[in-house]
């Protein structure tokens, strides 16, 4: 048996990234791991990008705070988090991060104003492909290098391709690459550069109309320097995510489709050379304690006919449930095998209440910490 991978993660890692398809319980898993690590005395930040803003409700923090918010005192207590341990949460607001970057870059509110007022910029912050992902990386960079936290848990954006958050900023970065980018600026030097710029403004003018094309140029012009500085951060954070004290986890449910998708993502993570450290099988029956099978011998002698016939029908559901338990256990064993000894495979139960209160998070954190002590099964 290998050393408990999950325990080491919670105790020593600097970054944990939770990936997975939409709807598998990523956010809840991320929050529970964060509660677990904070309980071990670490200063933890959980960062979510989920546009449905679920984590905010789960952790009881208000919507759209400008900076991370500590978990309310009573809940820290209920969760068994004691100093120096602490848990902060933040919902990533792409626009907020972008505006903040503009202000810092501009140096003064006065110089920031025309940029913030550019119509292309205003739409870009809601529509720019990869902007959420870009903002996530940018914020992650700030928090990792800031020193206020021992561990940052990142809940990745919901996306058909759960690893989009790694690719999308690259797409943006590809465009923002200095040499390419300058082509879109009113050119002052170089014959080729000028020819390129002329072709570009002609095409943009034809396609968008001259009015918008010139606004687009203004946008590129005021952003040239800012994008360059964002790019440097992006390269930093990508390098950071390759380090061994970063852990990529894959969250899945036992459904056929979700598992097939998890296998796909697992391969993708390995191909990208990212440190994969574990599977979390959510809403699984694998850990179900032994229960009795419904049997008429269990009924009291004076059982009503309704109870008796209900029990007969329950048998059908019970058989399905038993099958499910066996299937989920097999699935967990298979994930453990695929992950290898560097990774863990943890089953978490189906939580009836929709997993949106602190006690649910605490009960999952309990399971996680129990797993830490016993090591992977």
């Amino acid at each position: 048996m290998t050393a408990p991978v999950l325990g080491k993660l919670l105790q020593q890692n600097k970054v944990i990234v939770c990936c997975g398809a939409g709807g598998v319980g990523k956010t809840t898993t991320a929050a529970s791991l964060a509660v677990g690590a904070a309980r071990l005395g670490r200063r933890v930040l959980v960062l979510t990008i989920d546009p449905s803003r679920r984590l905010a409700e789960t952790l009881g923090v208000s919507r759209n705070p400008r900076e991370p918010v500590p978990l309310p005192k009573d809940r820290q207590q209920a969760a068994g988090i004691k100093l120096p341990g602490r848990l902060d949460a933040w919902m990533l607001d792409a626009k907020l991060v972008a505006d903040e970057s503009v202000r810092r870059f501009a140096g003064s509110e006065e110089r920031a104003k025309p940029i913030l007022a550019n119509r292309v910029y205003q739409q870009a912050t809601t529509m720019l492909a990869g902007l959420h992902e870009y903002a996530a990386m940018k914020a992650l960079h700030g928090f990792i290098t800031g020193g206020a936290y021992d561990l940052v848990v990142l809940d990745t954006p919901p996306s058909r391709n759960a690893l989009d958050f790694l690719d999308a900023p690259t797409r943006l970065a590809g465009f923002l690459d200095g040499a390419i980018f300058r082509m879109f600026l009113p050119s002052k030097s170089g014959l080729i550069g000028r020819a390129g710029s002329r072709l570009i403004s002609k095409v943009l003018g034809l396609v968008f109309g001259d009015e918008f094309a010139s606004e687009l140029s203004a946008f590129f012009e005021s952003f040239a320097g800012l994008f360059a500085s964002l790019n440097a951060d992006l390269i930093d954070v990508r390098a950071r995510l390759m380090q061994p004290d970063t852990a990529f986890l894959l969250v899945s449910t036992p459904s056929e489709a979700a598992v097939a998708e998890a296998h796909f993502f697992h391969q993708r993570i390995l191909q990208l050379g990212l440190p994969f450290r574990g599977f979390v099988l959510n809403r699984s029956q694998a850990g179900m304690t032994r229960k009795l099978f419904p049997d008429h011998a269990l009924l009291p002698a004076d059982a009503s006919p309704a109870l008796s016939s209900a029990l007969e029908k329950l048998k059908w559901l019970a058989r399905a449930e038993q099958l499910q338990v066996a299937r989920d256990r097999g699935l967990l064993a298979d994930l453990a095998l695929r992950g290898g000894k560097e990774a863990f495979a943890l089953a978490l139960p189906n939580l009836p209440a929709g997993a949106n209160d602190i006690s649910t998070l605490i009960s999952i954190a309990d399971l996680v910490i129990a797993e830490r002590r016993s090591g992977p099964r």
Partner: protein
Amino acid sequence: MKDWLDKRLVLITGKGGVGRSTLTAALAHAAQRAGKRVLLTEVADGGDDYSPLAQRFGLNQLPRKAASIAPGITGSQLLSDTGIELFFVSVLRSALLARTALGFEPLRRLFSAAPSLREMGTFFHLLTYLRAEQSPGHPLYELILVDMPATGHTLALTGLPDVVLRLVTRGPIADGLREGQSYLHDPLRTAAYVVTLPETLPISEALELLDGLETTRVPRGGVIVNRMPVERFSADETAALEGFLEHQPLFGAEAFSRIKDSRRAVERLRQLTSRPVSELPDFEESGEALIEKLAGALQ
């Protein structure tokens, strides 16, 4: 769920894990059986993305251009690059000129990253399929099904024309977007359905998505509640069994309480939306057999 077969464009939305892709595949089969020339599409980015929908047809991905994927069913990815190219060809009126412009690296990179352009390309690709005619007045694809991406991306796509039209008021892009809107906002031709599960959280998200669709002015066909547990117990049996299970944890108890929880969750949904709500039973089958069952239920 009715009327959907009379539309030109049916958008299937809903968060991951609710069975959206299986359901979309089943809708395609149901439409084909009803005698429609059906085109099944999903938004893709041209990479080797995992496609649950294509898996339902034994493929890794849907074809990049419309091609048969099952008897009587045509499939295609909706690709930003393809849409932009088709658009350029129509604007510059020359395939050669379009390819030259798009072969120019800086422009290529702009189109893969710049504000709204990716969504715009996707949108134009869809528009070319809507425009395609078999013969004058007869559309090549009578019904186009779109398996929409995750919530945020769905609304980025449906909200795109309004956003871009605020910026670009004249010219070929504006014309194209207005033409697209004439489909997208027309309740006679378009319906968006939100797929969800009979559970509290997915239903809350479905309600949010319905609001988002209304904001982007897309006609909402309704909500489809997938995997509704089958009610097997009479009221008397339920009451008796509930009392008994309180003291005696048994196998099957979870599935039993899910029946009631689901019923409650759907009641709440019906109270909170004025749109039609339809339920699909939790079939035991999986894979192709499940698609078969769902297609039958949808017809």
